[in-house]
């Protein structure tokens, strides 16, 4: 919708004022930084004088303290010098006039849908066309430039990116675009040109650059890759799960939901149900690495349920060993006790019953 010229002029005037305020802030920075250098220089000079005096009077004990003080002043002076140098080298900022901003706003109005000025939020707002990247529909986005933020940081943080028909990543609904999280754009290669454009008052260029980032996908550095945008299907039950609820079986490498994943009772490794087996003795789920076939019985036993025979060293089920830790093969064969001879002496013979009368 075309804005009345009166409103555009008002907005252009407001923008021009903000750029001018920023230019004034920057202009004040250089003398401020230089005053800071002078302050540290004088403090250093004072400490050096005291050091000379201490040397002259032979005050050896005070020398270490003075040296430390001088080192501190040198460090602060170095830092202040570096900041002053940056301020002095920064090119002078000339705030564009209201006329220049009017042209910028007209250009935005011509090139974007739904151009508007939000006086309450102090923002210039435009809308992109619906964006689809690699067959994933992300919807249209509003690009909002908040001019008050310019005073703090003339960079991409002045922009909010609002999904108008949100199709966020399954794993995180705060990610509405591979390069947008919590309404903030991670501008990557566009960061520097956006900053330059804002510094110079080229508002339309900054908006174009933001749009270029939104319309392009960098698979090397997304918040969430488009390949995983729709989430992942559980390999077992087929349920769609986001990254936070997705588990990867370390054995087969497939993705599973939290209902279809488990842990080895022995080593705690993450395994899907298909990659876990039961110990034949304790019946606990175990991974293949932790189960071993025992000699003799042929049972698959976990490390808690198996032992090495104390005599032959064979791996056997712990339950099959005797008290001395011997496997059934090594346990001595039991010799049947001989039958007691008949009519032997009974140590505690039952008293003979009296004969019936």
């Amino acid at each position, binding site marked *: 919708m075309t804005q009345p010229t009166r409103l555009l002029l008002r907005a252009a005037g407001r923008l021009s004022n903000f750029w001018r305020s920023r230019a004034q802030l920057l202009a004040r920075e250089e003398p401020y930084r230089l005053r800071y250098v002078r302050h540290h220089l004088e403090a250093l000079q004072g400490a050096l004088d005291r050091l000379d005096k201490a040397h002259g009077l032979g005050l050896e004990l005070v020398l270490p303290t003075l040296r430390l003080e001088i080192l501190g002043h040198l460090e602060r002076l170095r830092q202040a010098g570096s900041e002053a140098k940056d301020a002095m080298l920064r090119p002078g900022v000339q705030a564009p006039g209201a006329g220049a901003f009017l*042209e910028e706003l007209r*250009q935005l109005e011509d090139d974007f849908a739904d151009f508007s000025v939000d006086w309450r939020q102090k923002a210039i707002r435009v809308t992109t066309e619906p964006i689809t990247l690699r067959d994933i529909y992300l919807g249209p986005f509003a690009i909002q430039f908040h001019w008050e933020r310019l005073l703090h940081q003339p960079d991409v943080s002045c922009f909010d990116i609002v999904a108008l028909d949100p199709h966020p990543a399954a794993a995180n609904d705060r990610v509405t675009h*591979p*390069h947008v*999280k919590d309404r903030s*754009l*991670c*501008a*990557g*290669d*566009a960061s*520097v*040109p*956006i*900053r*330059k*454009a804002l510094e*110079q008052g*080229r508002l*339309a*260029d900054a908006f*174009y*650059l933001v749009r*270029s*980032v*939104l*319309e*392009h996908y*960098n698979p*090397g*550095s*997304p*918040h969430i890759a488009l390949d995983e945008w729709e989430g992942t299907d559980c390999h077992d039950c087929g349920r769609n799960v986001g990254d936070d609820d997705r588990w990867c079986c370390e054995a087969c490498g497939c993705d599973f939901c939290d209902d279809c994943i488990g842990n080895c009772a022995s080593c705690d490794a993450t395994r899907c149900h298909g990659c876990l087996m039961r110990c034949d003795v304790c019946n606990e789920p175990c991974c293949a690495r932790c189960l071993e076939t025992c000699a003799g019985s042929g049972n698959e036993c976990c490390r808690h349920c198996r032992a090495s025979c104390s005599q032959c060293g064979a791996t056997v089920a712990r339950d099959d060993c005797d008290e001395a830790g011997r496997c059934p093969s090594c346990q001595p064969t039991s010799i049947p006790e001989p039958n007691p001879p008949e009519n032997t002496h009974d140590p505690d013979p039952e008293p003979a019953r009296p004969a019936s009368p």
Partner: protein
Amino acid sequence: MVILFINNHGGGFADHIEVAEATTVADLFEERLPGCRAEDFLIRVNRQPASADQVLQAGDRVSMTPTKIEGAR
């Protein structure tokens, strides 16, 4: 002749530069952004869309803005 050239690629700067008479938009693009493809850029002369063979005039404002630029996370 002198034109205002705004390069939003890489460092992103605006500067007044000297160009030869009869320089076209395509000539300037090739000279200033060698190795890049014009179709990956939004090219404007005096804020208006421009054709490749448009001849530049003194005082023109030419901006070249990449349309494929990689974001990050």
